[in-house]
């Protein structure tokens, strides 16, 4: 784990981090690798890197009550039950947090929640067409349950053959983009590579960089041949064997013909099979069937995903964002040299962990939630805690690191420029060959077309010759028969006449045959000639193509990317050092400002706290996602237990085929899965309302809208949950004395006991005549439900 450019890391701590890295790499590589200890090492590495980058104080570790709520929301998508909270708060064991994490991660809820996380990540709340939503979500859950590596999962998402959508639910990713090439390109660029290349495609940002246009079209070429095939109601994917991306650079006005398929940071796909007319299909596209190409460009994209550092970085950043409410790189589709991660070294570390763990989801999630960084309190330190002397020292150390890094930057830049020059030269050379190859490709197409036609013509001529020969033979045979008859009937005029007719006919037929045979010979010769032309065209192509050296370009691309990455890492660290220096300076200004101008000091401290949050020193207040909010509302009020019971009852009353037909040893698992599906169906209407009303925090940021407040305040779906029924929260609150209600309601909704202050407030609120208590209880539950403490993960 060599870091050529690591400011903020003293020699000792660098060794420490390196040592931890070694431990963790060794652990994951060993035959009996203990992934769990690898997670611990990842957690330690996260904390080390965050601590090195911290400016001033870090927030305290969060309380057990905050923790139990936070991990439940993040790992199983719903707040804990009051019983669970009580038990956890009463648990004195020092490893209770680790045990809780492991228990939650082993549960069905983890599979459901991660399924929803990937659904939101990949479809961004778009709906796939037709009835595809359910199979798609079930497919995601199965993938999480089966611990499929994420590179493989995402590969399948782009490569999905897309026949019967029920059978290939992964196609939902592209079908949700209507299989429209520009939409698909944008989705792939943003979601799989963290690069929004929209402006590169059109005229919105004329100042944009030329490279990004090429980058856009490099991805575009991978999906260009894919289109929507509609058969009845079903939507499927069709892929052609041919189809190139041509574009004109808006800067150089150079026309680029047949752009190579190319990943944002990968070598171009130079050596593709050339498809001649008539070749290339398992099923050619037609009105009645979708095209299936022998060589799938989407398949090629899938195979290359994991080679791309940008892909890995994006995946690591998006996973991080799930647990921190924001990516280290923000926005999530703003990955690029100009937009540094808040912690460039930490993002690298996460990428390494992802690769070392073979793209497994669980170890990286476990590492993240085990870290103190994840378990930090959302309560910021007060400005009074500013230690001026320590900050001054930190400022000097930041300056020293800046100086050292600036020195390192220059050679890195030279190396990157040189490597880029070599790559560019090789690229240009390959491009020149590619341009020269185009006529030979056209010649192959043309001669192959000619050959195809010559084959047809030769076959037709041969068929004519065969027919003529058959006829001639028949006439000959008839003549022989008639002649024999004529001999027997010596002199019969009629028969003699027939002989004469047939003799004449024989002459004609012989002539026809001769013509047909000549034609056949000629067409066969023409076919041979066409074949020779084709062979020559192929040879001409092969000769020109032999000058290509994709391996060299691939090597040079890798070298250039590596050199660029080191330079970018150095530059980004410099950017972040400057950012941290500014933060330290602002912190130092607060105490004196607080005396001179308290409101200005308050505003400045608020901005400092925001930045400390971005710097991972203080926990972030994160809005719940629409489904976390809906599930938590139901959990708190007691509706979830009702839905779960109903799902079990429905499944057991009428077990679906998947359960009845399962082998005995698989019945239990099949039943559990069926219950999960029934449960999600039951919860569907509430989930749907929340999905329509609430923004996804990672996709759209936080949005508080009037419509949401009106819904939560007045919708019957919500008010219905506030009246007593069975053992729901309202019923439980009505069953206890007002004095005991405070803890019960706070545990159910806030996952913590009530404070003394709240106990008094709630007791007072419930002090109404008995007949008004149900109403008061409903108001009480609603007040907590609509509060910030419920709305945010803290």
């Amino acid at each position, binding site marked *: 784990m060599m870091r050529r450019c690591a400011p903020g890391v003293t020699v000792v701590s660098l060794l420490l981090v390196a040592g931890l890295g070694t431990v963790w790499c060794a652990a994951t590589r060993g035959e009996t690798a203990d992934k769990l200890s690898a997670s611990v090492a990842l957690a330690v590495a996260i904390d080390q890197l965050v601590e090195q980058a911290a400016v001033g104080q870090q927030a305290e570790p969060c309380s057990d009550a905050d923790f139990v709520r936070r991990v439940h929301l993040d790992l199983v998508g719903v707040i804990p039950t009051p019983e669970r909270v009580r038990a956890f708060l009463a648990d004195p064991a020092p490893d209770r947090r680790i045990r809780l994490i492991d228990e939650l991660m082993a549960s069905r809820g983890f599979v459901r929640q991660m399924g929803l996380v990937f659904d939101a990540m990949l479809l961004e709340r778009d709906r796939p067409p037709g009835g595809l939503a359910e199979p798609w979500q079930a497919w995601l859950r199965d993938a999480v349950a089966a611990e499929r590596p994420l590179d493989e999962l995402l590969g399948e998402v782009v490569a999905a053959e897309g026949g019967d959508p029920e059978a290939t639910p992964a196609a939902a990713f592209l079908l949700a983009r*209507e299989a429209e090439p*520009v*939409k698909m390109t*944008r989705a792939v660029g943003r979601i799989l590579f963290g690069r929004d290349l*929209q*402006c590169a495609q059109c005229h*919105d940002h004329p*100042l*944009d960089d030329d490279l*990004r246009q090429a980058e856009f079209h490099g991805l575009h070429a991978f999906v260009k041949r894919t289109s929507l095939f509609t058969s009845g109601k079903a939507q499927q994917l069709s892929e052609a064997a041919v189809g190139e991306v041509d574009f004109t650079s808006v800067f150089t006005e150079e026309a680029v013909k047949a752009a190579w398929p190319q990943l944002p940071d990968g070598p171009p796909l130079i050596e593709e099979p050339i498809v001649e007319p008539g070749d290339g299909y398992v099923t050619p596209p037609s009105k009645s069937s979708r095209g299936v190409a022998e060589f799938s460009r989407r398949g090629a994209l899938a195979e290359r995903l994991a080679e791309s550092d940008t892909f890995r970085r994006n995946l690591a950043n998006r996973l991080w964002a799930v647990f921190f409410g924001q990516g280290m790189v*923000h*926005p999530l589709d*703003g990955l*690029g040299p100009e*937009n540094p991660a808040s912690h460039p070294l930490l993002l690298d570390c996460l990428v390494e962990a992802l690769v070392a763990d073979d793209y497994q989801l669980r170890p990286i999630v476990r590492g993240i939630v085990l870290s103190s960084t994840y378990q930090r309190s959302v*309560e*910021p330190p007060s*400005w009074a805690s500013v230690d001026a002397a320590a900050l001054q020292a930190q400022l000097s150390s930041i300056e020293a690191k800046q100086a050292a890094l600036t020195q390192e930057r220059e050679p890195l830049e030279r190396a990157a420029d040189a490597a880029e020059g070599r790559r560019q030269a090789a690229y240009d050379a390959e491009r020149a060959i590619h341009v020269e190859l185009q006529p030979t490709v056209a010649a192959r197409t043309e001669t192959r077309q000619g050959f195809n036609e010559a084959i047809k013509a030769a076959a037709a001529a041969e068929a004519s010759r065969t027919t003529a020969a058959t006829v001639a033979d028949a006439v000959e045979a008839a003549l022989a028969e008639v002649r024999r008859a004529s001999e027997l009937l010596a002199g019969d005029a009629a028969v003699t006449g027939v002989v004469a007719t047939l003799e004449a006919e024989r002459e004609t037929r012989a002539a026809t045959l001769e013509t047909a045979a000549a034609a056949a010979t000629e067409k066969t010769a023409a076919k041979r000639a066409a074949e020779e032309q084709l062979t020559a065209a192929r040879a001409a192509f092969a000769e020109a193509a032999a000058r290509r050296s994709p391996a060299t370009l691939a090597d040079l691309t890798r070298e250039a990317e590596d050199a660029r990455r080191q330079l970018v890492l150095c530059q980004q660290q410099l950017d972040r050092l400057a950012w941290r220096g500014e933060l330290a300076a602002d912190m130092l200004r607060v105490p004196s400002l*607080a005396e001179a101008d*308290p*409101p200005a*000091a*308050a*505003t400045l*401290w*608020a*901005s400092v706290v*925001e930045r400390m949050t971005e710097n991972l020193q203080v926990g972030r*207040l994160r*809005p719940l996602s629409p489904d976390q909010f809906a599930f938590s509302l139901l959990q708190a009020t007691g509706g979830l237990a009702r839905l779960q019971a109903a799902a079990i009852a429905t499944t057991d009353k009428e077990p679906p085929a998947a359960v009845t037909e399962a082998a005995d040893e698989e019945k239990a698992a099949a039943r559990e899965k069926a219950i999960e599906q029934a449960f999600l169906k039951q919860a569907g209407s509430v989930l749907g309302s929340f999905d329509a*009303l*609430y*923004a996804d925090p990672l996709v*759209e*940021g*936080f*949005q*508080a*809208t*009037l*419509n*949401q*407040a*009106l819904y939560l*305040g*007045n919708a019957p779906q919500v*008010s219905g949950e506030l009246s007593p029924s069975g053992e729901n929260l309202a019923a439980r609150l009505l069953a206890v004395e007002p004095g005991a209600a405070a803890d019960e309601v706070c545990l159910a909704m806030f996952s913590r006991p009530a404070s003394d202050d*709240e106990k008094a*407030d709630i007791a007072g609120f419930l002090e109404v005549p008995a007949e008004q208590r149900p*109403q008061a209880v409903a*108001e*009480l539950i609603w*007040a*907590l439900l*609509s*509060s*910030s*403490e419920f709305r*945010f993960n*803290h």
Partner: protein
Amino acid sequence: MASNPACRSADHALSRRSLLGGLGVGALGMCGGLAATPGLAEAVKSGSKRVLVVFLHGGVSQLESWDPKPGTDTGGPFRAIPTSVPGTHISELLPHTATQMHRLSIIRSLDTKNGDHGRGQREMISGRDQPAPFDYPSLGAVVAKTSTPTGFSLPGHILIRGAGTGPGSAAYLGPQFAGVAMNDGKPPEYTARPEGLTGEADRRRAALRSRFNDRFAGRRRTADTDAYTFSYDQALDLLDQREVFDVTKESVRDHDRYGSHEFGQHCLLARRLLERGVPFVQVNHSNYDTHFENFDFHIEQLGEFDRPFATLVNDLTERGLMEDTLVCVMSEFGRTPRINDRYGRDHWGTSWSIVMGGAGVQSGGIIGRTNADGTAVEDRAVDHGHVFHTILQAIGVDSLGEFHVAGRDHPIADPAKGPIDELLA
């Protein structure tokens, strides 16, 4: 890279700052309580301008409305009549509107190069070319985002329509700015308290909610928590003003003037909403897709449109609202000059018209010109992009600027286009 995540737009900074101002103080513990919410009356006086769009669904015929060509092969049977602007003629199907033309301008040179309903509706309402498959916010979302006064508690983007068509998309601006539908003129969803919940009880539970929020704010307070708690205050405010959505509260006389049919009622409702300061109101009128019997249908549809629309323009003017309300009558496209063999006209995006007025735009004017039989634009061709810029600039929005949302930059309007300057002069 075009987007600069560190950059903050003026409007973003402003709204966040107004929240953060109070926040910082609270966080330092120097001052308790949440920032006061400005009252509604004050908000409406803040001087923001408004937009009214009347959208004639299906594609109104320019030849039977704003650009008549009587006596030509393509002109159809109707005459052109003089209007309140000397020299300006419109179709005889719009006699009431003709008396208001000095308050409006006609743009006779739209060339939107499209004959698809869905695309035309998207393009006209978002101001963007939409074969490029990106989602852009609709005009209503942009107006709500840029022109909703601080503390305003009614929805900023209201669509009055018959049920059916989709709501105005807010795209990257987010659900806060998406269109709130008043289907068939009925109040928006969930604006009535559930049975058994009195206003008093609602306020009581809201007070309890505030106490929990104050306690939590002691632990952590952010712009997000402030926006969240504010949204409930806004909802409570809205319920108190629920009558805004109730057109029956208007006088009998006004009901007579506007007419009891759907479009008349919707125009009266639009006036009511605009008077209360709603920044964007759209009224839809159907159906102008007259592939056959074009002339009969236009007699009927425009007959319904004419009087309420003219009354609305007149009322807005008399009540002093026209000065800062931009009124635009648009459609997804026009109709073919050629009359087909079923006496119909088909989809036509090559040379058609819209009307615009109010908010200080040039009135009584005519922008652009079509040729003698209306088959082509001869002068000053414009499209949805130019119209979008013009509307926004008329209400004081710098349409050449950018939105900064969740760390990304989005040009407010199509950067390749600009406003129709003659209208803004």
